[in-house]
């Protein structure tokens, strides 16, 4: 077992015993990345020099000054700003953009002693679910290089799965942490809206976006959320609720837990092997003292459309900031200001982004605002109400994280119903603001399957508790892709 395939919790123990230095771990990390990333292209930018310097500083730190993630290498999705380090959102629009401040989550990681090793690939501006819309080329799935890693946080999930880093940050607007976590066989959490500050996360759909921790184990995920969560003066939507120690919830005791399984979550479009894996997971949880029942969510089938309208509308407003004047890409020799805007945005944004911005503008326009945007917001309220009712009687909602295992690169063959089912599984957590985690629960043709556990608002503890109990009873999380052994 190499140093880089260890979990954050295991590394912490090695540091405590003084068996290894931060510099050794950091050097080993870059060695692994240099070997592996040629194959999977998870990173868009490495910060080796800065990381080694930081590691040397940490090695001088007294034991009682060490933070909870002391010496642990982390990768950061490239839509999270990093001071003096290029932050591209995997777009030509920001190819050379160097932010002048750190996102709150980046500051928190540093304060906790984590060593940032670089920026991770993603779908351009987080708009996609395959990482294929990245301006810098796609990331490949570490389990099978002919498949996508999912997205939009494809680089974040692939880097953790491939053993390049034990922890990474992703962001989740409509499944962008959980779906790639499922496709890559790692643990990804989208916390409650407001649990983590969004300051410095490039806004996409502001009422949906959350930063999310990605790891190989539930314990590591809880350790990372401990560091990231909390109120921030710079984000008025961040919650003042006290941050508990999430690792304290990992007791393994789920006796009496009540699980709801929406019928749509195992219905049309969900591949049979995926549904079987989730049912087998429910049996494991049952054997641990939980009980489950099927429930109906009368409006959940509208979630993908509602999500698409709301996220595109919010983006069309948010993205007015990319004007090519203050920062980022700018067109050559425009004749006037108007031409500068039009050409900068035509040349700087990719097709998927432009499609969503034009559609969002349509949805927000005076003629269509009521019938499209406001109607979507009303259906959003009905979807949220469906979930509120279910959570009156149940502790968690469980289903697959995605309807299928990782799709092949450039997929055009898969049934549209599978894509639609993916969105039915992914988007409700964002529309309702609820926490939801994905963790490995099986394999189809050597590709991982993800189990999704959704909880009550600000009850990440129960979500982690259930995920941990399941993880401890199974060994899917112990399997590693062959690429980790240098194959």
């Amino acid at each position, binding site marked *: 077992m190499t140093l880089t395939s260890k979990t954050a919790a295991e590394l912490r123990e090695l540091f405590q015993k003084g068996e290894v230095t931060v510099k050794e771990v950091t050097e080993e990390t870059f060695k692994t990345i240099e070997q592996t990333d040629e194959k999977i292209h998870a990173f868009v930018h490495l910060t080796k020099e800065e990381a080694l310097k930081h590691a040397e500083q940490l090695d001088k730190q007294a034991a009682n000054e060490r933070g909870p993630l002391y010496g642990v290498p982390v990768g950061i999705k490239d839509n999270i700003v990093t001071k003096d380090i290029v932050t591209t959102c995997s777009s030509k629009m920001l190819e050379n953009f160097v932010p*002048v*401040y750190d996102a709150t989550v980046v500051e928190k990681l540093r304060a906790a002693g984590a060593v940032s090793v670089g920026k991770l690939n993603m779908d351009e501006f987080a708009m996609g679910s395959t990482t294929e819309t990245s301006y810098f080329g796609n990331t490949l799935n570490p389990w099978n290089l002919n498949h996508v890693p999912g997205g939009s946080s494809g680089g974040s999930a692939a880097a953790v799965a491939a053993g390049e880093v034990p922890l990474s940050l992703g962001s989740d607007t409509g499944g962008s942490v959980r779906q790639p976590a499922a496709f890559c066989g790692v643990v990804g959490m989208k916390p*409650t*809206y*407001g649990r983590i500050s969004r300051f410095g996360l490039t806004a996409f759909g502001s*009422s949906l976006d959350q930063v999310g921790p990605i790891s190989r184990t539930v314990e590591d995920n809880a350790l990372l959320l401990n560091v990231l969560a909390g109120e921030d003066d710079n984000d*008025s*939507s961040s*919650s003042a609720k006290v941050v508990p120690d999430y690792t304290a919830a990992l007791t393994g005791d789920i006796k009496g837990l009540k699980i709801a399984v929406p019928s749509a979550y195992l219905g049309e479009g969900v591949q049979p092997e995926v549904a079987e894996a989730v049912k087998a997971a429910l049996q494991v949880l049952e054997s641990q003292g939980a009980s489950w029942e099927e429930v109906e969510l009368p*409006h959940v089938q*509208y979630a*993908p*459309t*509602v999500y*698409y309208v709301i996220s595109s509308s919010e983006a069309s407003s948010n993205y*007015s900031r990319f*004007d*090519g*004047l*203050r920062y980022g890409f*700018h067109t050559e020799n*425009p*004749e*006037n*200001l*108007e*031409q*500068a805007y*039009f*050409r900068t*945005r*035509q040349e700087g*944004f990719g*097709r998927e982004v*432009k*499609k969503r*911005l*034009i*559609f*969002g*503008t*349509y*949805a927000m*326009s005076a003629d269509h605002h009521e019938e*499209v945007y*406001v*109607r979507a*917001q*009303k*259906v*959003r*309220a*009905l979807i*949220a109400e469906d979930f509120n009712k279910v959570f009156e009687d149940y502790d968690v909602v469980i289903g697959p994280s995605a309807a299928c295992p990782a799709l092949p690169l450039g997929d055009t063959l898969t049934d549209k119903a599978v894509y639609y089912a993916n969105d039915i599984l992914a988007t409700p957590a*964002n*529309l*309702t*603001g*609820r926490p939801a985690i994905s963790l490995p629960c099986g394999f189809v043709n050597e590709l991982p399957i993800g189990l999704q556990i959704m909880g009550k*608002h600000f009850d990440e503890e129960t979500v982690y508790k259930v995920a941990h109990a399941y993880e401890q009873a199974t060994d899917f999380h112990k399997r590693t892709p062959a690429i980790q052994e240098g194959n």
Partner: protein
Amino acid sequence: MTTFSKDDVKYFADFVRIGVSEEDKEYYAAKIADLIASVENLNEVDVSGVKPMTHPIPMINVLREDTPKDILDREKMLATAEDHEDGLIKVPDIL
């Protein structure tokens, strides 16, 4: 059958300040027509009396002290701009 014409693409792209080529117009017209067709499914939902949900977690009047902070370096911020003069960002001719 929902239609979203090439002229519609141009009309809305103008609002959002995105230049579109002839080829783009065709591509977006087809893609956005599909999206609008799926949006029409929302019309079958009875939303009478439902208040639009603007935010996933209710939050009212989040306030803090208005304390000036020395946050960002002006020179560094200007350095990211295409052009600047006397501490101001310079833009191309407006007319």
